[in-house]
């Protein structure tokens, strides 16, 4: 049994008859701009890493429609439990570039005070939950948060992301199982980009798809063309509304492709087929949506410039500001371990302080093979 | 000098001032903690304040009859000589409140750790608790030192290994027995009286080491001394002959080689006279090797170089070795190897004078033999009184390990061999 792939846009970028969601023009243009800005941000991130100015970067190239289209279906008060490849959501939720980029530099402008590797964001102001590296942990947390909101009679919806690799994690099973049993208001978005670093889908699962796994847990599963932003938006909106009504969770599989390597530490050319890559490049979500906008007469050269170069300029300016911010002080290492700093942490802070005063401690170590 | 200001305390219930009724001390006076200090009158009561810590009064800042506010300085006390100064931040508490096993003697420069680099003040947090690293404690125990009697020079009042090597062993400590017991505070020698002089030099170095060794020996081995006089008339003749025989070899033969051989023979009959007590394993060790130390006086003091394997050397060889040793000692070329491994010691004080002595055992050996001057004296031979030559031998023996009877028998053998030297050749 194979789930039908939901699409709206055809290969020429026209909406299939009767399927156009007819979003307002501003929203359509906003979606386009968000995708362009996200790509520009990703380009800048990798460039900075290659220049050695930041230690690590991880791109969402090719998956802009998949995560922006889905998050777009939420209200501002809805929570996000992202994985680490959904930067467009930050822009959607209007996090300033400086704040995002300060996180890359891990300096005093970073919400997390330079504690985590780049792209492991946390933005409470946007209901964007702190990201961790272990795969899938966000899935059961989303279920739990959903259970809490439901118990309190609140209509918050929780959207969480994972990749195809994430479906093999323990938390995928626990998270979906709990969410379904408790009918939690959760939307599980599995961005199936075909590769878990170097492991392809056919090594990841023997199921016909990721979406079909929803069946085992007793929730609806939807398979959608991840590079068709309108299709993604539509199916996610339905799932969000289901959740908000109290009808429980949904698993959405967006079928997309990881155009870039897994991260700045990976080189996908070593294990991926060139033909496969080229085929997917032709299905680029931004190019497809551009064609759609053109049909709708919502695109122009100036608009393109605003979206692409405009974003690049804003990002460049933000890099300048963010990079110049002061580094975090050593004392910050001992904060936020607990709410109240314990005596042993105070002692260790003093010990380090004294050593730093004497000088020489903490010569640069470490390289960036990740 | 560590001058500490004494401020008029708030004697009670928030008084603001007090009148000095009478001083119980005078400037320059040495005082002990709790001595009467000053009588002060307030509008509530008249109280006698006692001296807060031991020291001497440096200065009285106000006179009897003065009315002074609470908190003003009324006297300055000198808390003690170098090594006993309490740091400023400790000023509030009577810093040297330590009880009498005083690691901070008020004025006892002789007992101070030598050349300590301005050690931090010793403040005992709880009297009786001594700070030291575990290895230091083990060494102290092995050396029989009560840590509580040591003036610590380490940070925060810690006893260091250096402190041990310069400290006096505690009187009560016996090998392997519990350390602690009775200990006396160090005694101070008051300065020379008015108009008379004295010289004081730091008590350290070899002299100090000798002192420590002597103390330990006397307080551990229970000494008894047994004396006998030896008719050496025949020995003198033999020695003359030997001396002439070896003269062209450049070897000066003294009486010592003969005495050493006699002692070895006696030890073979009474082997416990060549023994020691192993305090770590608690074993009585009877040695099958005979290494005799010869106590030698040098410009720097007493050293005891050792002649090894006396039983295996002839009188001539011993004589040569003794001569060589004497030479090297004069030249200061005695090695560590020369000074170790002894099983018995001979001390030769006869050249200076005297009849006999009570020598101190070279601990941990079991006995020491003093050899005294040969004197012309009347002797009884075949019922007649004739001129002869006699020599005293005094042997001090550790009564824990060897009884009087054994010592006496041993001496009889030595005496016999020396009085009839040819007997030694016969075995």
């Amino acid at each position, binding site marked *: 049994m194979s789930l039908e792939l939901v699409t709206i846009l055809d290969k020429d970028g026209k909406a299939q008859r009767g399927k156009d969601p007819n979003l307002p023009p501003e929203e359509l243009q906003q979606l386009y701009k968000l995708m362009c800005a996200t790509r520009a941000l990703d380009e800048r991130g990798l460039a900075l890493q290659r220049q050695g100015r930041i230690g690590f970067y991880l791109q969402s190239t090719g998956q802009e429609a998949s995560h922006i289209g889905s998050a777009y279906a939420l209200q501002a008060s809805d929570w996000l439990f992202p994985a680490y490849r959904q930067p467009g959501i930050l822009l959607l939720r209007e996090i300033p570039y400086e704040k995002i980029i300060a996180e890359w530099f891990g300096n005093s402008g970073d919400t997390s005070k330079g504690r*985590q590797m780049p792209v492991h964001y946390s933005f409470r102001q946007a209901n964007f939950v702190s990201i961790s590296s272990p795969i899938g942990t966000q899935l059961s947390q989303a279920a739990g948060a959903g259970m809490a909101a439901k118990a309190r009679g609140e209509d918050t919806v929780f959207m969480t992301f994972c990749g195809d690799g994430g479906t093999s994690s323990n938390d995928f099973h626990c998270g979906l199982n709990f969410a379904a049993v408790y009918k939690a208001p959760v939307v599980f978005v599995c961005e199936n980009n075909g590769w878990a670093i170097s492991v392809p889908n056919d090594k990841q699962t023997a199921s016909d798809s990721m979406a079909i796994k929803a069946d085992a847990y007793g929730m609806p599963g939807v398979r959608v063309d991840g590079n068709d932003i309108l299709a993604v938006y539509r199916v996610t909106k339905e799932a969000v509304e289901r959740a908000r009504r109290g009808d429980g969770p949904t698993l959405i599989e967006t079928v997309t492709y990881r155009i870039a390597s897994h991260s700045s530490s990976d080189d996908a050319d070593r294990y991926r087929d060139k033909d496969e890559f080229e085929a997917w490049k032709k299905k680029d979500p931004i190019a497809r949506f551009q064609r759609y906008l053109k049909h709708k007469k919502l695109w122009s050269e100036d608009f393109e410039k605003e979206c692409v170069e405009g974003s690049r300029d804003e990002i460049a300016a933000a890099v300048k500001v963010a990079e110049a911010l002061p580094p975090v002080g050593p004392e910050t290492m001992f904060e936020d371990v607990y709410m109240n700093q314990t005596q042993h942490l105070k002692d260790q802070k003093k010990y380090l302080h004294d*050593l730093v005063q004497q000088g020489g401690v903490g*010569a640069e170590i470490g390289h960036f093979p990740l | 000098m560590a001058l500490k200001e004494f401020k008029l305390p708030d004697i009670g219930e928030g008084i603001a001032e007090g009148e000095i009724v009478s001083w119980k001390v005078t400037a320059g006076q040495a005082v002990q903690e709790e001595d009467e200090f000053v009588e002060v009158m307030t509008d509530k009561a008249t109280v006698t304040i006692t001296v807060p810590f031991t020291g001497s009064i440096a200065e009285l800042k106000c006179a009897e009859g003065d009315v002074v506010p609470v908190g003003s300085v009324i006297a300055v006390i000198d808390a003690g000589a170098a090594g006993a100064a309490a740091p400023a931040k400790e000023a509030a508490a009577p810093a040297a409140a330590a009880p009498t096993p005083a690691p901070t003697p008020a004025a006892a420069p002789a007992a101070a750790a030598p050349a300590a680099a301005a050690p931090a003040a010793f403040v005992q947090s709880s009297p009786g608790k001594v700070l030291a*690293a575990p290895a230091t404690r083990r060494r102290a125990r092995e050396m029989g030192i009560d840590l509580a009697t040591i003036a610590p020079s380490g940070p925060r009042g810690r006893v260091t290994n250096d402190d041990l090597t310069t400290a006096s062993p505690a009187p009560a400590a016996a090998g392997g027995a519990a350390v602690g017991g009775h200990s006396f505070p160090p005694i101070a020698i008051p300065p020379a009286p008015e108009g008379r002089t004295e010289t004081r030099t730091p008590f350290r170095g070899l002299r100090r080491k000798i002192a420590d060794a002597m103390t330990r020996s006397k307080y551990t081995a229970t000494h008894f001394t047994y004396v006998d006089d030896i008719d050496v008339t025949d020995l003198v003749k033999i020695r003359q002959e030997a001396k002439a025989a070896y003269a062209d070899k450049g070897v000066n033969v003294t009486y010592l080689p003969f005495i050493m051989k006699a002692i070895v023979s006696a030890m073979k009959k009474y082997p416990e006279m060549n023994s020691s007590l192993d305090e770590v394993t608690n074993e009585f060790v009877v040695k099958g090797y005979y290494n005799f130390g010869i106590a030698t006086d040098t410009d720097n003091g007493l050293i005891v170089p050792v002649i090894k394997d006396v039983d295996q050397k002839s009188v001539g060889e011993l004589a040569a070795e003794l001569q060589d040793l004497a030479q090297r000692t004069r030249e200061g070329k005695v090695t560590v190897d020369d000074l170790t491994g002894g099983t018995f010691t001979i001390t030769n004080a006869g050249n200076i004078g005297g009849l006999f002595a009570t020598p101190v055992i070279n601990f941990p050996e079991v006995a020491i033999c003093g050899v005294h001057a040969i004197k012309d004296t009347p002797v009884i031979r075949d019922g007649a009184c004739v001129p002869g030559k006699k020599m005293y031998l005094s042997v001090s023996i550790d009564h824990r390990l060897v009884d009087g009877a054994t010592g006496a028998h041993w001496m009889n053998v030595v005496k016999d061999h020396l009085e009839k030297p040819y007997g030694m050749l016969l075995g």
Partner: protein
Amino acid sequence: MTATNPQAGESKTGTKVMTMLEAINDAMKVEMRNDDRVVVFGEDVGKKGGVFGTTMGLHEQFGENRCFDTPLSECGILGAGVGMALYGMRPIAEIQFLDFIYPGFDQIVSEAAKMRYRSGGEYTCPMVIRSPYGGGIRGGHYHSQSSEAYFCHTPGLKVVIPATPADAKGLLISSIRDEDPVMFLEPKAIYRHAKDEVPLGEHTVELGKARIAREGADVTVLCYGAMVPVCEKAADLAAEDGRSVEIVDLRTLVPLDERTILESVKKTGRVVVVYEAPKTGGFGGELSAIIAEKAIEYMEGPIVRVAGFDTPFPYSLEHLYMPDPKRVAAGIEKTFVW
């Protein structure tokens, strides 16, 4: 010794300069040739050859049945590994980063570690779990943890941590041949920096034996993994102050070579225990306790630990978090003056 035709044949003699990465790779190649029960699996170990390259060439050389990629599931990797071991294989399970091992912790602690004991010896689990651990690569919270303490605290497991390429190879081969489950933790910070002569062919290093990395007289430094080169630099600094430092590279944490440790500590009378893991509850505490219990009378000074701080491993402040030569040297000095 020079390598004699290192490319050819089964029995090789001589040595070759290798990085620790290459040495680990070589160990697996040697054992996979030796013993067809040996299999290697984990995330990205096949075609990609591992995210660090430790399994490079194995898939090519030995095929899909002997070296294969798994789904993204530590629990699955380790549980399946236990099953393979029970069935008579010699599985080498790779966990991509030790930080990711927790979903599989149950299989390690509840199953692998207790298998022999609970079955009266009927079932055993000769599995090797290989995983890069430790900081020094700007990996932040989740690519830098030094969590060996959890495994040292689990009876039934052996814990091995090499510090040199030759030891990495020798210890890995011994671990593969060992009949008990072994956590083989690889100090990723020195994967490429550690470079030295490595014996070719079947080179083994006995588990449970420490190595005197440097002889000294005044103070003993106990360390393992990436901290060993740090301690060597610290010893150089201390030598400038006239301190002669003896460095003991533990190599195996469980079972521990107490004898070598105590001999050294009794000789010098001073000890510094260095570990990059968070100080509290770290393995260094165990070492300190053993010394305090069995060699207290030899201690001339305090038993000092130089460790990571009790915070999650930070990204930007990594260089201050990890013990570095100056901090270790300060620890050494503390055993003399405190």
